[in-house]
């Protein structure tokens, strides 16, 4: 794997550590951390800061029964849950979980581009995109923040080149026109906190039909 050069910004790592991110962004962060040792270490560092804040909190009164019933449970056999989904192929475990353990079911979007919507709700959307080599993705702005994690191949846009493991953080005011690199098709995980807004590709009124 090529070296990762585009990382998570500090505030996203803190927000993930503190569970202040919605599900779609949490999957993107967990997936990048799975691939990137530097961000894994930064996440761990912020968990230390979180732990330090926890230790410094004033003590709340807990009921007497809480300790009794917790100590009494120690001998009980642990409930065995399902093991967390494992990394499969190019997909980290967090993505496999969003795929419910199955391979992606791709839908054609036009121009050879395919997508697989993993989740979509008021909190945001999470999708996989499959872009043929050297294919451009139409210029699009975003209603909010968009995180794009490259899982295979690469893409380039006005802001640079993104290879496998790299994550792009695109803000609201940033319109960009990514083009997939040569060689392998580019597979990306894209998380948004608002619907995408493609310009000059599909009339806006058609967007809900194509669920872009």
């Amino acid at each position, binding site marked *: 794997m090529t070296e990762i050069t585009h990382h998570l910004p500090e505030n996203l790592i803190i927000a993930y550590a503190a569970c202040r991110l919605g599900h779609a962004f949490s999957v993107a962060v967990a*997936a990048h951390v799975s691939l990137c040792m530097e961000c894994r270490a930064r*996440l761990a*560092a912020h968990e230390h800061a979180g*732990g330090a804040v*926890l230790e410094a909190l004033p003590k*709340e009164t807990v009921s007497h029964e809480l300790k009794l019933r917790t100590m009494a449970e120690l001998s009980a056999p642990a409930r065995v849950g399902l093991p967390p989904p494992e990394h499969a192929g190019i997909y980290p475990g*967090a993505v496999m979980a969003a795929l419910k353990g199955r391979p992606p079911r791709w839908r054609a979007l036009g121009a050879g581009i395919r997508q697989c919507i993993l989740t979509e709700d008021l909190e945001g959307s999470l999708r996989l995109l499959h872009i043929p080599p050297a294919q451009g993705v139409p210029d699009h702005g975003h209603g909010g923040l968009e995180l794009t994690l490259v899982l295979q191949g690469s893409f380039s846009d006005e802001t640079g080149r993104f290879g496998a493991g790299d994550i792009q953080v695109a803000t609201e005011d940033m319109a960009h026109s990514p083009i997939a690199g040569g060689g392998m098709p580019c597979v990306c995980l894209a998380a948004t906190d608002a619907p995408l807004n493609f310009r000059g590709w599909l009339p806006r009124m058609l967007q809900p039909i194509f669920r872009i």
Partner: protein
Amino acid sequence: MLTQECISNVLTLSVAALLQGRVSGMNLASYKGADVTDRLPRPLSQQTTWLLDVRDNRNRAAFAQLFDFYAPRLKGMLLRAGLQSGQAEDVVQEVMLAIWRKADQFDPARAQASAWIYRIARNRQIDMIRLENRPLPDELVAAEEESIDDAAQVLALDQEGTQLRAALIRLAPEQRTVIEQAYMGELSHSEITAQTGLPLGTIKSRIRLALDRLRHDLRDLR
């Protein structure tokens, strides 16, 4: 393949970098030479020692110590996240039981007890409140020849954590509030913005400012 030894090294570096408000490259040689060997060995933090006693000896008295220390604080954290008292205690119980059951996964070369418990508490909170599994990073694969507790690594990490805590306590109340809000999940960034009328950029730079203040405090320590 990422190994645990590798991550331990970078982690120590990263805690130091956090204190300096940045993450630098991964040149470990100069870091280890300059810092770790200069320090006099001190015992591990009390909480980490209790957790190791639970892990290695299944010691219930040590677990009771952990309970007395963390349960009232975990409850405070969950109340800040907006839970009601009874609900918070249910989550506290699940977190404490997860600590008992998962203790064999605790690696003091990668985390101090409080950092490990903070993460477990957040995971259980999401799993129980949202009724969905929190998306988690893949586990690292341990290299077979690796020793579990590299003593120097454990000590170095523990001391970085202790210094971080010391620096935190010395923050001005306003800065400490910013840090607490960031890590206690009380409010999201946009919610803080709505409440205070500060633009998003301001709260972010205040967090950075507070982290920067941590760095200066640490420098004064040395």
